[in-house]
């Protein structure tokens, strides 16, 4: 048993004494290269796509400049899978072990995570690896270009799932439900009983086909997979694979501040109460803690971004301090970042943390714009709405197979960025194979339609 395993075992025992509740965690030591790739792909083994290559290079550049250090990656599930970086010190990895237990506790108990867990099962790492394998087979069978063009479309629409909806859902009913005959009036029922008149034979109207989609459909990946007129089975399969992974990523995305804060709260607490840790190790672990949970890089006065570790940690400490740990556990169960920030980031806390809203004007001048609490909350949450993407729905599927997508520019406040939208439309067109249109607004907020 290594020193780390010894500490890890004792930290776990302590965690259980403190009432943490989680699925078993599989820890693995991984080399730095693997950690980098996990950071890039989001999963240890994921489908190949050239866009990951670009992110990979960006990540390598950031790491080489020292802007980014990866401590751990953790995949919720049953069991949870956690990767520790083998180049980190024992102190850092002891901290990370405690941090991972915090994530594990969060993901078992938070309703959003639990919902995904119930829908897709607790083995996303293996599921994604199986996806990667199937896509590899598709590449062998159909060539890299064809698979790539499907992935171009599917990954571009990655965030366009219905996050409130179900992972497994049936197609729309094909026909409109037959309309029930209106209840007979007294006169009618008596009239019907009169002798001499044959009852009129009910007109066989046949069934009426329901329009597709019956309502604006925001789950674009699902819609394309099921209703694209010329999609082949393996292409459909790719869309559904990307969609499953998106469902997995959503709770991670939507609870990032809470989740990181919760894990930081617990790693701090576990280490504080771990009297078995030698003093020097504890000190260097706490040093690592303060490096992670700090609002801005050392030597700087301000940051133009919020560190979710710091913000989450601060809010959780406050909740536990004011309302006790049991209340905190309820919050962990019920909220996502939206509720968490709106309900628990109060004026006092924002002031203590020095939060503000800034504005970038044309010419790149950046000013502090406001310290109003609701403005701060909305500025923190704005990038998180709707999985971080514009609200775009499938609006109409015409008889010729052409598709109309519609962007809710009224609710998003402005139109889409046209060049990118056109390119995404091209990606979609390549798999839809019939005309595709996208309605949005231009910079004067007038309705425009892009076509491919």
């Amino acid at each position, binding site marked *: 048993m290594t020193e780390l*395993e010894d500490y*890890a075992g004792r930290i*776990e025992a302590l965690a259980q004494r403190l009432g943490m509740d989680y699925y078993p965690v599989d*820890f*693995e*030591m991984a*080399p730095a290269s*693997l950690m*980098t790739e996990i950071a890039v792909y989001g999963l*240890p*083994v994921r489908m*190949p*796509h*050239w*866009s*990951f*290559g*670009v992110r*990979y290079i*960006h*990540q390598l*550049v950031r790491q080489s400049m020292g802007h980014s250090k990866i401590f751990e990656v953790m995949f919720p599930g049953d069991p949870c899978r956690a990767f520790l970086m*083998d180049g980190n010190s024992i102190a850092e990895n002891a901290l990370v072990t405690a941090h991972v237990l915090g994530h594990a506790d969060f993901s078992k108990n938070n309703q959003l995570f639990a919902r995904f867990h119930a829908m897709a099962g607790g083995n996303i790492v293996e599921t994604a690896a199986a996806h990667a394998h199937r896509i590899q087979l598709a590449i062998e069978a159909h060539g890299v270009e064809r698979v790539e063009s499907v992935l171009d479309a599917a990954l*571009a629409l*990655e*965030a366009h799932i219905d996050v409130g909806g179900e992972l497994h859902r049936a197609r729309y009913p094909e026909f409109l439900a037959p309309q029930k005959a209106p209840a007979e009036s007294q006169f009618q029922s008596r009239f019907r009983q009169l002798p001499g008149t044959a009852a009129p034979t009910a007109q066989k109207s046949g069934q009426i086909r329901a329009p597709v989609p019956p309502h604006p459909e925001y789950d674009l990946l699902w819609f394309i997979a099921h209703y694209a007129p010329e999609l082949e089975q393996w292409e459909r399969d790719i869309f559904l694979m990307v969609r499953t992974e998106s469902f997995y990523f959503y709770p991670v995305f939507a609870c990032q501040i809470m989740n990181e804060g919760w894990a930081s709260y617990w790693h701090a607490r576990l280490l504080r109460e771990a009297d078995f840790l030698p003093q020097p190790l504890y000190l260097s672990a706490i040093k690592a803690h303060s490096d992670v949970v700090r609002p*801005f890089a050392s030597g700087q*006065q*301000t940051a*133009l*971004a919020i*560190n979710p570790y710091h*913000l989450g940690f601060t809010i959780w400490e406050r909740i536990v301090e004011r309302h006790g740990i049991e209340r905190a556990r309820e919050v962990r169960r019920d909220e996502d970042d939206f509720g968490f920030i709106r309900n628990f980031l109060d004026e006092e806390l924002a002031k203590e*943390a*020095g*939060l503000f*809203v*800034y504005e*970038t004007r*044309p*010419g*790149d*001048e*950046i*000013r*502090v*714009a406001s310290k109003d609490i609701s403005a701060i909350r909305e500025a923190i949450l*704005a990038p998180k709405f709707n999985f971080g*993407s*514009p609200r775009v729905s499938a609006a109409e599927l015409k008889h010729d197979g052409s598709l109309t997508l519609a*962007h809710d520019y009224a609710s998003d*406040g402005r139109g*889409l960025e*046209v*060049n*990118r*939208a056109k*390119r*995404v439309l091209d*990606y979609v067109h390549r798999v839809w194979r019939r005309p595709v249109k996208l309605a949005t607004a231009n910079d004067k907020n007038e309705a425009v339609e892009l076509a491919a």
Partner: protein
Amino acid sequence: MTIRLAAETPWYDLFSRGARDWLRHNEKVRDAVKDTLPELLSSADLMTGNGSRTVAVPVKFLEHARLRLADASTQQGAGQGRGEPGDVLQPGREDGNEPGQQGGTGDGEIRFMVELKLDEIVDWLWEELKLPELKPKRTATMDQAEYVREGWDKRGARSRLDRRRTMKEAVKRHAIQGNAAANGSVAVAEEPISLVNDDLRFRQLVKRPSPATSAAVIFALDVSGSMDEAQRRLAKQFFFFALQGIRRQYAKVETVFLAHAAQAWEFDESQFFQASSSGGTVTSSVARLALEVMEKRYDPARYNVYFFYASDGENAAEDRDEARSALAEIAGQVNYSGYCETGGVATFRPRDTQLAEIFGELKTTGLAVGTSHLASQDDVWNAIREFFTEQSKE
């Protein structure tokens, strides 16, 4: 609790995914570059130097597009630290609109260079233009003896001593002798191994006949006052790609650069395109010089000779007959002679120029002659296509 090492988990071996996807990205970048190749090459100065050179092309990362909202005129975000409403965190640039040099926050700001091998570019072009390969003249194929290395021997010239091989032999012998002496005890050679004559190994050479495929390309350029900079650049490009194409076919290509106005001179490649003269145009001078060069150095019986001539077509009227006979003589000897006439589309020509007429006449007599007109960049590709397709028909 046990902590596994990732190395124990077999499926990690299956991927070095980041690097693989990065290579795929680069492949796509190359394809994108390939699509815009003609525009790209027109700006690059490619002519001089040998074929193994590379051209570095700056490119941006490809971006995988996602739907996103258009930029608002003022962007908001949440920040943290000291600051009161109204405080300026970053001063704006003076000019308001130009994107900044170090605004390196967005994606795609990192540029990288794609190195393209010239050979590769030419290969793409050949694919793109669907050009056939040239056919060497049968008579020009002759057997030429060549020495190739083959095997070793214990005797040979000192200069061909194979040291590595010799040392191996010495070590082998030493090991056998040492083992026999020490009877199996591990005798690590503390003292240096001595060489004896028996250890020496010499590389052996054998004479092998090999087919010679050599070509000579004669470029002739009109540098008289009427040829302007743009016309010369087109000529240069045509020459360059013609040469690259010929290089694809022949193992050994020699080049001759001739420039003329009223007189003709031979230049080396580096000076060729700088040469200029204000004199009148006497085409026969360069044709005679070309004949002379062929006679002295590149016997058409032994070489595949290609002759390319670029001019604006205006030759001195009194030189017409002289030029015609010299050019006919050349056309009769070489694999192919190509004439490209340069001149802007704006130039109104009521009739063919004198040189165009001459080459036209030569063509009708069944000689391997081609003419083309270079007015713009696209014409270069057309001229190249025409030249190579005609050539392969022969």
